[in-house]
C-alpha cells in the first residue's frame, strides 16, 4: 500500500532538517541575524553565519542520512542538533572541532579524494559545490557557532535601525527596508504617481480598479491625508472582504464539489460568506483562527461560530463505489492536519506522516498527536455523490434566519388565536359532539400531503394524488379496486387471489394469506440523492397490521420480487419497505444492501395475532436519525442495522405494493388495514390521530376529561375541519398555512458541513505502527498552557498565544506576499529548515509583534503596510536593479505583478459596468465554453447550467468551482485547483491567456458594453471616448502617442465595419446583455474592438 501524502519510509530524496530537540533548550535563543540570503554582492566576504550559510547546506545535503529522522538514518551521526553535531564519536574523533577544520571529521569527509569516503555519497545524487565546501570549512575554522532555527524563536520587536536618508521614512517598515537598501548601496524608488498608486491600492484592498470618479477625487485632493482617506475608504468597503476571501478560499481549499471521481456538488457557500463577513467586520485574526478551528467548542457557540468550522470540512470527499471508507476517513484528517500546519504554522508537517520529518524537528508521533485533534468527529470516509456529508447542519442565511423567527412568532400568535376562538366555540363543539354520538361510525384522519390511501374495505378505492418531481402539477388520479380498462394496463389491484375481508379496529381489513398482494402501480416515488440532485424527501407510511406470525413479511414496500436477493433471511433488494420480521418492525431504504442503505428495526418485539398501528417515517433532512418508527402511537427505540445511505434507493422498476415485496417468501401473512402514505413529516399530533382506532362517535361518547390525548386531538381536528365556527376554522387554516410555510422554509435552508466533536474522543494511532497517541503539540514549539483544554479549542488558542512564534509570522508574511507578490519569506508555505530565510528578518518580526500587540487587527496591519513609503514606490525597473534583484526582494521598487485571475475578470466587468455587486449567496455559473464537461463526465453530469443574467456578471469568487474541471478562465490565469491547500500564488504568461482575453464571451461582451459606455459617457470626440476607455481600465488617460495608436486602430476598425455591417452585427451579438446606445452598429463594433484592445493591455492586467 502506498497511500500517504507525505514521503515514504525509505525516502532517499527527502532530506532532513534542523532541530533543537531538548538539548537545544540549554542555549538561549539567539536574536535573529541581520544578514540574510537575498542578493548581495558582498555575501561571500561576510563572516559566515550559521543560520544563513550553513544550516541550509546541512539540511539540503546532509539531513537525509544525518538528520532528525533518526530511526531511518544511515548513520548515528546527526547534524540537526548542536548536541549531536559536536558529540564525541569515539576513538577521539569528532565531526566538528571548533576552530579546527583539519581535526573535524566533517571537513575531512566532504573533501576526501577517495570516492568511497567522500560525503555526500555518490549514490545519493547530492553534491556539494566548491563554494559550499569552502563555507563549511570556513565556518568550522571561524569557531563553528550554532544557532537555533530562526522560525522557532519568538519574534522580537527591535528598535528601528538607523538610516542615513531619514527624510524618506514614513513608518517603521521603511526603516527596516531602507537600512537594508543602504547596506546594499541602493536607493529606494520615487513614489509612484497618484493614478498608479490609487489603482494599485484599490486592487490590493478591494480587488477592483478605482472608478474614474474615485481617481479624480484623489488626484484633486491636495490634503496631506488624501492617500490615507483612500486607504480608509477601501478598507471600509464591503468589496474588501471579498478581496481578502480570494486567497483565503485557496488556503482553505474551498470549492462547490466533492473533488473525487464523480465530483458531485456540495453546499459550502454559507462558510464562504462567513469568511467575507469576517474580513469586512475586521474580526481579530486570533478570533478568526479560533472560530474556524473550534467555533463549535466555544461555550454556547453561536450559529456563526459553528458555521466558521466548515474551514476544516472543505477538503475533498470520496464517494466512489467500492472504496474502503476507513482509508478515506484517514485522508480527510490528514488533509486537515496538513492544511492547518501550512496555513497557520507554515510547516510541512505532512512529511512526518510516514516517518520523522527529514528536515524539521518533528517526529512521526507528533504528527499523529496533531492528527488526534482532528479525527474525532462523527464523519464517514465515504461521501454522498451529491450534497453534504455528515456532520452537517442547517446554516440559514441571515435572511432565512429572520424569516424563520418571524414565522415562529406568527405561529405562536396563530396558536393563541386559535385557542381563544376554540374557547369561545366550546358550546358549539359540545353540540356537534352530541350529534356525532348518534351518527354512524366514522373517522377523521389528516389529509394534508396525503398522496396515497387504501381503506382496504369492501368497495374501497385506491386514492392516489402524487405530484411528480418535475413540479408540474398533474390531475389527482383515483383508481377503483377493480380497475377500469386503462388501469389494467397499469396492473393496479389485488394480485394472486381475491381479497377476503375481516374485522379490524377500524371496521374491515383484508386478509393476506401469504400469496395475495395489492399492486398500487408506480406511485409513492421517494428518493435520497443522485449524482446531480438532492431530493430532500420526507415521507411517512401509516398502516394497521395484524401479524399471523413472527415472520409475517412485507407490509408496504416499493421493492422488487427477486428471490435471489436474500441475505441472513432478510429481503435485501433495492427500494424501500416496511416489514415484520422476527417479531419486529423493520424499515429499510436500500440502494446497495451492505454499503449504501439505511436500515433499522424496532428494539422491542410485538405480540403476534394482534392489531398494531405503525408509522414509519423517513426524513432526508436529518444528518443521522433519518428514520423513526412509531407503534401504536409510541416512538420506538431502534436498532440501527445500517446508517450509511449515500445515494438513490428508489427502485423505479418496482411497484408500490401492500403485503408484498422482497421476494415471494415475504408475502404478508396476516391482516392489513388503512394504509396511508404522506409526503411530509407527520407532526406528533398527526401520529397520535393516525394511531387512534376509535371512531368519532365512540370518542364523542366519552366525557371530554376522560378522553385520551389521541382521542381529544382526533375529535378536535374533526370539529375544526367540519363544524367549527368560521372564525375558528379561519384561524385553524391560517395556522396550518404558517406551519406549511415553515416546513417549506426549513427544507430550503442551506446546509453546511461543519466540525462537531464526538462525546468521547476517538482514539488516534500512530498509523502503520499501531501505538495509540494522545493529543499534543510538537515539542520544539512552546508547550500548550495548562489552562487550555487539550482539544481542538485548546489547540486553536495555543496557535494564537503570544509565545507561539509561527502563527503571527506566517500570517503577516502572507499579507506581505499578497501586496508585494513575494513574501518576506518567499516560501510562504515552508518556514522550516528547507524554506527560505526571510529577506528582512527584523521587519518580519516587527510586523508579527505589531500585529499581535494591535489585537490581531487585520485591517490595521494592511493599513500600516500600504501607508509605508516602501509600498508606495514606483515599480519602474532600471537595468542595474533588474540584474541585481530581478525578484524585487530588496524592495528598491514598488510591486509590479500580473493580476490574479479573479481581478482580471472582475475589472473587465466593473469597467464595462456589467458587474453585479451583490454580496454572497449560492455560487453562480458564468459563461463557459459549451461542451466542456461533456468529454469528461458521466452522462447525467455533463450539463453546465449557465446562468441567464445576473449570475453571469457577479464577482469571480462566486463562480461555481468544480474541482475536477476548473472554470477555464480562472485556470489559465493560474488559479489554484482547490483540490488541496495552496498558500502561494504562481504567475505564468502563456498564449492561452491571450486567447482567453481576446475571445472569451465574458471579455467580448464586456468590451461591447464598455464601448457603449465610451460612446454614451465619453462625449462626442473619439479622443475623449478613447480616453474614457483607458481610464476605466488602466486608471489613466493616454498620452499623445498612445492616443495616436488607439485612434489609428479605431479608424481602421471603423472602415472595416462600415464595409462589413454584418460582421459588426455579429460581433455585437456576443453575450446576452442587450446593447443600449443610439450609436450606429458599425461605430459600436469599432469601439468594442478598441475596448477589447484596452482590456488586453499588459498594463491593464497588471498591478504596477
Amino acid at each position: 500500500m502506498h497511500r500517504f501524502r507525505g514521503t515514504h519510509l525509505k525516502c532517499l530524496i527527502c532530506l532532513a532538517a534542523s532541530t533543537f530537540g531538548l538539548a537545544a533548550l540549554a542555549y538561549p535563543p539567539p536574536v535573529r541575524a541581520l544578514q540574510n540570503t537575498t542578493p548581495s554582492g558582498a555575501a561571500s566576504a561576510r563572516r559566515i553565519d550559521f543560520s544563513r550559510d550553513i544550516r541550509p547546506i546541512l539540511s539540503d545535503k546532509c539531513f537525509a542520512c544525518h538528520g532528525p529522522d533518526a530511526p531511518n538514518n544511515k548513520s548515528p551521526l546527526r547534524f540537526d542538533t548542536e548536541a549531536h553535531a559536536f558529540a564525541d564519536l569515539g576513538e577521539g574523533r569528532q565531526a566538528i572541532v571548533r576552530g579546527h577544520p583539519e581535526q573535524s571529521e566533517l571537513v575531512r569527509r566532504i573533501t576526501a579524494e577517495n570516492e568511497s569516503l567522500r560525503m555526500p555519497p555518490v549514490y545519493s545524487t547530492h553534491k556539494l559545490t566548491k563554494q559550499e565546501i569552502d563555507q563549511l570549512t570556513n565556518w568550522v575554522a571561524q569557531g563553528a557557532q550554532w544557532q537555533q532555527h530562526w522560525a522557532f524563536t519568538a519574534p522580537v520587536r527591535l528598535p528601528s535601525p538607523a538610516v542615513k536618508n531619514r527624510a524618506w521614512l514614513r513608518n517603521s517598515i521603511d526603516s527596516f527596508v531602507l537600512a537594508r537598501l543602504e547596506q546594499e548601496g541602493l536607493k529606494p524608488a520615487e513614489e509612484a504617481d497618484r493614478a498608479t498608486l490609487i489603482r494599485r491600492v484599490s486592487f490590493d484592498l478591494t480587488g477592483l480598479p478605482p472608478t474614474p470618479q474615485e481617481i479624480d477625487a484623489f488626484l484633486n485632493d491636495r490634503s496631506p491625508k488624501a492617500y490615507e482617506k483612500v486607504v480608509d475608504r477601501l478598507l471600509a468597503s464591503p468589496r474588501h472582504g471579498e478581496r481578502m476571501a480570494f486567497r483565503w478560499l485557496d488556503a482553505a481549499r474551498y470549492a462547490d464539489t466533492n473533488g473525487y471521481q464523480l465530483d458531485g456538488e456540495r453546499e459550502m457557500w454559507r462558510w464562504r460568506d462567513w469568511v467575507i463577513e469576517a474580513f469586512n467586520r475586521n474580526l481579530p485574526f486570533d478570533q478568526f483562527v479560533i472560530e474556524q478551528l473550534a467555533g463549535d467548542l466555544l461555550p454556547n457557540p453561536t450559529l456563526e461560530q459553528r458555521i466558521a468550522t466548515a474551514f476544516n470540512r472543505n477538503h475533498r470527499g470520496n464517494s466512489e463505489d467500492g472504496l474502503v471508507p476507513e482509508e478515506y476517513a484517514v485522508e480527510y484528517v490528514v488533509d486537515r492536519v496538513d492544511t492547518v500546519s501550512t496555513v497557520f504554522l507554515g510547516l510541512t508537517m505532512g512529511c512526518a506522516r510516514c516517518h520523522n520529518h527529514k528536515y524539521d524537528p518533528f517526529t512521526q508521533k507528533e504528527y499523529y498527536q496533531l492528527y488526534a485533534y482532528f479525527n474525532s468527529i462523527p464523519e464517514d470516509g465515504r461521501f454522498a455523490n451529491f450534497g453534504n456529508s455528515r456532520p452537517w447542519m442547517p446554516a440559514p442565511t441571515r435572511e432565512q434566519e429572520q424569516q424563520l423567527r418571524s414565522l415562529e412568532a406568527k405561529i405562536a400568535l396563530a396558536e393563541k388565536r386559535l385557542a381563544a376562538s376554540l374557547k369561545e366555540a366550546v358550546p358549539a363543539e359540545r353540540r356537534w359532539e352530541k350529534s356525532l354520538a348518534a351518527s354512524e361510525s366514522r373517522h377523521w384522519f389528516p389529509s394534508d400531503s396525503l398522496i396515497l390511501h387504501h381503506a382496504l374495505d369492501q368497495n374501497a378505492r385506491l386514492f392516489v394524488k402524487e405530484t411528480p418531481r418535475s413540479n408540474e402539477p398533474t390531475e389527482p388520479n383515483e383508481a377503483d379496486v377493480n380497475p377500469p380498462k386503462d388501469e389494467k394496463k397499469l396492473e393496479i389491484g389485488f394480485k394472486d387471489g381475491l381479497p377476503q375481508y375481516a374485522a379490524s379496529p377500524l371496521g374491515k381489513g383484508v386478509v393476506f394469506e401469504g400469496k395475495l398482494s395489492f399492486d398500487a402501480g408506480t406511485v409513492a416515488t421517494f428518493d435520497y440523492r443522485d449524482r446531480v440532485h438532492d431530493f430532500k424527501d420526507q415521507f411517512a407510511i401509516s398502516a394497521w397490521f395484524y401479524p399471523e406470525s413472527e415472520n409475517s413479511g412485507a407490509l408496504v414496500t416499493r421493492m422488487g420480487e427477486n428471490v435471489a436477493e436474500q441475505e441472513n433471511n432478510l429481503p435485501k433488494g433495492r427500494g424501500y419497505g416496511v416489514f415484520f420480521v422476527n417479531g419486529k418492525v423493520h424499515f429499510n431504504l436500500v440502494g446497495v444492501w451492505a454499503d449504501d442503505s439505511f436500515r433499522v428495526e424496532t428494539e422491542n418485539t410485538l405480540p403476534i395475532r394482534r392489531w398494531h398501528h405503525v408509522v414509519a417515517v423517513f426524513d432526508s433532512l436529518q444528518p443521522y436519525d433519518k428514520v423513526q418508527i412509531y407503534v401504536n402511537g409510541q416512538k420506538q427505540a431502534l436498532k440501527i442495522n445500517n446508517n450509511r445511505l449515500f445515494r438513490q434507493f428508489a427502485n423505479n422498476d418496482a411497484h408500490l405494493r401492500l403485503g408484498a415485496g422482497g421476494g415471494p417468501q415475504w408475502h404478508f401473512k396476516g391482516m392489513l388495514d388503512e394504509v396511508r402514505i404522506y409526503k411530509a413529516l407527520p407532526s406528533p399530533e398527526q401520529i397520535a390521530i393516525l394511531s387512534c382506532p376509535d371512531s368519532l362517535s365512540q370518542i364523542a361518547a366519552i366525557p371530554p376529561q376522560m378522553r385520551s390525548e389521541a382521542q381529544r386531538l382526533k375529535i378536535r381536528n374533526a370539529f375544526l375541519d367540519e363544524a367549527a365556527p368560521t372564525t375558528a376554522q379561519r384561524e385553524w387554516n391560517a395556522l396550518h398555512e404558517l406551519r406549511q410555510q415553515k416546513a417549506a422554509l426549513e427544507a430550503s435552508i442551506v446546509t453546511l458541513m461543519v466540525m462537531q466533536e464526538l462525546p468521547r474522543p476517538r482514539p488516534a494511532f500512530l498509523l502503520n505502527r499501531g501505538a495509540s497517541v494522545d493529543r499534543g503539540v510538537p515539542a520544539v514549539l512552546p508547550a500548550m498552557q495548562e489552562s487550555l483544554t487539550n482539544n481542538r479549542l485548546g489547540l486553536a488558542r495555543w496557535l494564537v498565544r503570544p509565545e507561539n512564534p509561527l502563527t503571527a509570522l506566517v500570517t503577516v508574511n502572507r499579507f506581505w506576499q499578497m501586496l508585494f507578490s513575494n513574501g518576506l519569506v518567499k516560501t510562504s508555505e515552508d518556514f522550516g529548515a528547507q524554506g527560505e530565510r526571510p529577506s528582512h528578518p527584523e521587519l518580519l518580526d516587527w510586523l508579527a509583534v505589531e500585529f499581535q500587540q494591535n489585537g490581531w487587527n487585520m485591517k490595521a496591519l494592511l493599513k500600516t503596510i500600504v501607508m509605508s513609503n516602501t509600498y508606495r514606490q514606483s515599480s519602474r525597473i532600471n537595468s542595474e536593479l533588474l540584474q541585481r534583484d530581478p525578484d524585487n526582494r530588496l524592495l528598491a521598487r514598488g510591486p509590479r505583478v500580473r493580476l490574479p485571475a479573479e481581478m482580471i475578470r472582475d475589472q473587465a466587468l466593473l469597467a464595462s459596468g456589467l458587474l453585479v455587486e451583490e454580496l454572497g449567496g449560492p455560487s453562480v455559473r458564468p459563461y463557459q465554453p459549451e461542451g466542456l464537461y461533456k468529454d469528461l463526465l458521466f452522462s447525467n453530469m455533463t450539463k453546465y447550467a449557465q446562468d441567464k443574467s445576473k449570475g453571469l456578471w457577479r464577482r469571480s469568487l462566486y463562480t461555481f468551482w468544480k474541482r475536477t474541471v476548473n472554470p477555464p478562465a480562472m485556470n489559465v490565469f493560474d488559479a489554484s485547483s482547490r483540490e488541496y491547500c495552496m498558500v502561494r500564488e504562481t504567475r505564468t504568461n502563456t498564449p492561452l491567456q491571450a486567447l482567453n482575453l481576446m475571445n472569451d464571451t465574458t471579455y467580448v461582451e464586456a468590451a461591447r458594453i464598455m464601448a457603449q459606455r465610451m460612446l454614451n459617457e465619453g462625449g462626442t470626440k473619439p479622443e475623449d471616448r478613447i480616453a474614457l476607455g483607458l481610464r476605466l481600465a488602466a486608471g489613466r488617460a493616454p498620452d499623445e502617442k498612445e492616443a495616436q495608436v488607439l485612434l489609428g486602430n479605431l479608424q481602421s476598425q471603423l472602415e472595416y465595419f462600415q464595409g462589413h455591417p454584418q460582421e459588426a452585427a455579429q460581433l455585437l451579438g456576443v453575450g446576452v446583455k442587450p446593447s443600449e446606445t443610439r450609436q450606429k452598429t458599425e461605430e459600436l463594433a469599432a469601439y468594442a474592438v478598441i475596448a477589447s484592445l484596452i482590456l488586453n493591455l499588459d498594463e491593464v492586467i497588471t498591478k504596477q
Partner: protein
Amino acid sequence: MNIEMTSPLDEYRRLMTRRHFFSRCGLGMGTTALAALLKDDGLAVSTAEGGESQSGLPELPHFAPKAKRVIYLFQSGGPSQLELFDHKPQLEKYRGQDLPDSVRRGQRLTGMTAFQSSFPTAPSIYKFGQYGKSSATLSELLPHTAKIADDLCFIKSMHTDQINHDPAITFSLTGFQLAGRPSLCSWIAYGLGSENKDLPAFVVMVSVGASSDQPLYDRLWGSGFLSSRHQGVKFHSGQDPVLYLSNPPGINNEVRRRFLDDLAKLNQKNAETFGDPEILSRVSQYELAYRMQSSVPELTDLSKEPEKILERYGPDARKPGTFAANCILARRLAERGVRFIQLFHRGWDQHNNCPKQIAGQCRNTDQPTAALIQDLKERGLFEDTLVIWGGEFGRTVYSQGKLTAEDYGRDHHPRCFTLWLAGGGIKGGVTIGETDDFSYNIVRDPVSVFDLNATILHCLGLDHTRLTYKFQGRYFRLTDVHGDVVNRALA
C-alpha cells in the same frame, strides 16, 4: 523608441533564445528595434519561476534519448486482461467454481463485490491465438493489433496499489493517488520543454462517443506544483479545438492582426517605461496565440488526409472526436514535434455484460491503434515515438454478478494487468511477466506503475531519480522513492 533607454530590454534579450515571429509583422513605432530584440527565440520566460522555461531544463536530457515524443493511448476504466491478452486456457475447468482462497489470499475487494456470497470463476468466452514471429498471444477481439504484434512489448505483470478508478488513474498518471502531484506529461514538459514553437508541448484528447463511463479530471494532465504552463492543453472535439481559439464572430484575421500590432506597440511603450521584461514576454505570447489560431485548425483539419489513410483507421476516422480521428491527430501532432500526446478512451469498466461491452470497445480502438503504429512506421516516426497502450488496473477472474454461459461481469483488479509499449527505445516482439492460472497474482517479473513511469522517462533520456523539483522543502520525483527501469523492454 530610443534603444538607449531600453537597457532592461537588453537584459531581456540576454534571457531569450532565438525566434522570428516579429519579422513579418511590419509594425510602426519602435517595431524594428523590437523585432531585432526578439529575433531570439524565447517563449515564456517568467521571472517569477526562476529557471524554468519552455525550452526545458539546461542539463537535460540526462543521456541520449531513444524517443523524442510519447503517444500515450490511455484506456480508462481498466481493460480486462482476461479478454484481451492474458490467455488462461486451463480456467475452463474451474468455470463456475469459487475462486480458491489460496489465490485470493485475503486481498481486499471493492465494496461492489466484497459482499458477494460467491466468487464464481469466469473464463473468457473469447478465443486466443498466436501472432507474428514472436508468437504473441492475443484475443480474437484484437485482429488488427495481432498484425503489429511483433512491434509491441507486452507487459503482462503490471500491478498497481489502487483498487478504485479515481485514485488508480491519478496514481498511474501522477505517481500518487491523491490530487496535488504533477502529471507524467507535465514532468516531461518541465524537463524537456517544447519542440514546436506554434503548438503546446503537451496535448490531451478524450474520445467522444465512447460509452459514458468513468469521469476524467483536469489533474490527470495538470501540473501540480510545477508551473501551470506545463499542464496539458486539452483539445476539444467541437468548434474550438483549443479553448477560446477562434476569434469572436465578426472579427477576421486582418482585424486581429491589426489589433495585435497596435497592442504590441502600446505594450512595448509600457515596457520602455517600466523596464519589466515580463511585458515583452506577454507580447510574444500574443504572437504565439495568433500563430496557434492558424496552426491548430490546420492541424485538426483531416480533409486533406488521403483516402487510403482514413480507411486504414477504420469507419470512425471521419467522425471528429472519435478514438480513430484522435489517433490520426496524434500522428499529425507527432509529425509537428509535439512532445507528449495523450489520448483517453473511456468505457473499459466492465462490471457487467463484459463480453458484449468489451467487444464494442475493441471495435472502436483496435483498428485505429494498429493504423497509428503502421502510419508512424511509414513516416519514419516510429523509431523515435514511444507509444503506450493501457489502463489503470485489470479485472477480476471471478464474475461480478451472475455467471452464465455467455455473460459475466468483472470487478476492478489491481494485482495484475496487461499493458503494451512500442516504438522509440522499445524492443518489439517481447512479452514480459507472467500471472498465475487465474490471472490473479503475478508469478514472474512484476512491473509496478513506478517502474513503467521510470521506463517511459528513460526512453526520453531522463533518469527518473534525477528529474526532481523542490517543493515544500523536498525534492519531489514522479517515481517518489520507487521505480526501476524495465530493462528487458528496452531495445
